[in-house]
């Protein structure tokens, strides 16, 4: 390589951020194995969903044991934001108001139960999502929720949202 080419290559390396112009460039490489699951989110189209699956019947038993104290015996009583609707407490029950069923799986797996987040297996999170969706009448009692079926669930409120960011950006609504 000529001196000129070397110089050009060095310049390119600098500009491409190896040592960013504004910062000292101290970020360390991050490998896939170092990233915990909750640093990503399951996407509405199902990207990121793991193996496994579950049904409302399995979910019902887990729910009674691990969720009912906060969200109510059948999911409508609360006191905390009941996920089953309609109910008298919360106008946005997760299992029918949220636009995508994938969010149920991801949120339950990362955040619930409140006192032991990330303690549930993937199968348990699928089963709990199935239980909540079935209790809302959004899926059948016997339907299995897995990486295939969950993104296909047609949430009843999906087309009822206006995306304000797309419409007007950072101007307050």
């Amino acid at each position, binding site marked *: 390589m000529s001196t000129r080419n070397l110089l050009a290559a060095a310049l390119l390396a600098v500009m*491409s*951020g190896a040592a*960013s112009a*504004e*910062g*000292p*460039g*101290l*970020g*360390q*490489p*991050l*490998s*896939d194995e*170092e*990233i915990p699951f*909750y*640093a*990503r*989110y*399951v*996407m*509405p189209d199902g990207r990121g969903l793991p193996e496994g699956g579950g049904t409302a019947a399995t979910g019902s038993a887990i729910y009674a044991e691990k969720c009912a*104290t*906060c969200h109510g015996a059948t999911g409508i009583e609360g*006191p*905390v*934001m009941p996920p089953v609707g309609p109910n008298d407490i919360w*106008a*946005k029950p*997760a299992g029918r*108001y*949220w*636009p*995508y069923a*994938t*969010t149920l799986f*991801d*949120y339950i797996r*990362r*955040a*619930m139960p*409140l006192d032991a*987040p*990330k303690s549930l297996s993937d199968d348990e999170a699928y089963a709990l999502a199935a239980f909540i969706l079935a209790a809302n009448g959004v899926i059948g009692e016997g339907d299995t929720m897995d990486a295939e079926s969950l993104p296909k669930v047609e949430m009843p*409120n999906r087309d*009822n*949202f*206006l*995306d*304000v*960011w*797309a419409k007007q*950006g*950072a*101007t*307050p*609504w």
Partner: protein
Amino acid sequence: MKRATDHPSVLDHVAGGGLLNRRLLLQGAVAGGGAALAGATMPRAARAQGAIPEWATVAGERARGYGMPAEAEAHVQRAILEPFADVAPQFSLSGTPHHRLRGTITPNGLHFEVHHGGRPNIDPERHRLMIHGLVERPLQFDLGALERYPMVTATHFLECSGNSLFNAIMPDPMQAGCDLLHGLLSNTEWTGIPMNVLLDEAGVKPEGRWLVATGGDGPSLARSIPVEKLMEDGMLALYQNGERIRPEQGYPMRLLLPGFEGNMNVKWLTSLWATDAPAHTKHESGEYTEILADGSSVKFTFAMGVKSVITHPSATMTMSGSGLYELSGIAWSGAGPIRKVEVSADGGASWAEAELQGPVLPRALTRFRLPWAWEGAPSLLMSRAEDATGAVQPTREAWKARYDASNFLHYNAIQAWQITANGEVQNVYA
């Protein structure tokens, strides 16, 4: 030079209900006029007889490493709400007591908090920020590395989109102080690394239009953030009012998105994951969307609207007799700087422009003030802010008409305080 006296009738009135010309503030006339001081001749040699307080007769306390408020101010606290105290006390709201503060900067210990799963205990040595997904170089940063980056400083308010929720949904106005009524709002000086520096180092790909920001808390709170906002004025905040961010505010680092609803300013930030679309995380799917009057909903309503509140006087206070007062309050907007604040003392029949305390910063609290001669009669105080985009606060009626009755988010209607004949200050809808 015009002088204010005890006689309101000779004052320069600018609107009904006793509102006075704000020029009086500059003349220092409101302090009570220029009597006294002259004529007091002290007898020589004789020791004055006035009582000596005991603190002036002893040596003071020794120095302490970290200062604390005066003991007599111990009651100045955040108002804590735990709506599910029996089963989930970790879910809590703590409101800044604006009626007990002046100026514009919120002390760190009084900054509002909303906790969805309690305050985590993070080891700063093991905490890291990951930037990954649709980037050229997935990277991780520890605190030591971040300390070597160039840092900028900016003053910004943070407001929970649920601030003022009681006024939004309660059929009758709740009688409470500004801590419960409007406390999910605070304003501090933030110091940290411009987000674009870190994102450029990782090299976000053109198709990486959103970044999902995730916290290091138990529930791993996550929000999808448009890349434009992060690049424009997003900050990785490490310091607040000069000291390290406190655990309540995201120690050792949080995301700061000036003007955007509090929930998106992810505390304990540990991951930014570049994606081609918003992930529709839990919070942006339900809790932080708004149901409109027609039953449809709006999502991704990020910026906070223009708003103001008179803090002095405000609900729960009692006037200490008729005469001259300074009305004082705070105004802010997620869209930019405040352009003007108008005040009414007669329920909106007439308005006068208040003095804005400079510097008027974009997306930061601005204090306004106006002299007022309270004649001891019932009056209805209001403030109405306008921001640099020309947006003006709506009436409560207009705001309510827009939304479903259940909605309590993004409430920015005009606040009215009723002063009764005997000087009580009450929260009213008007």
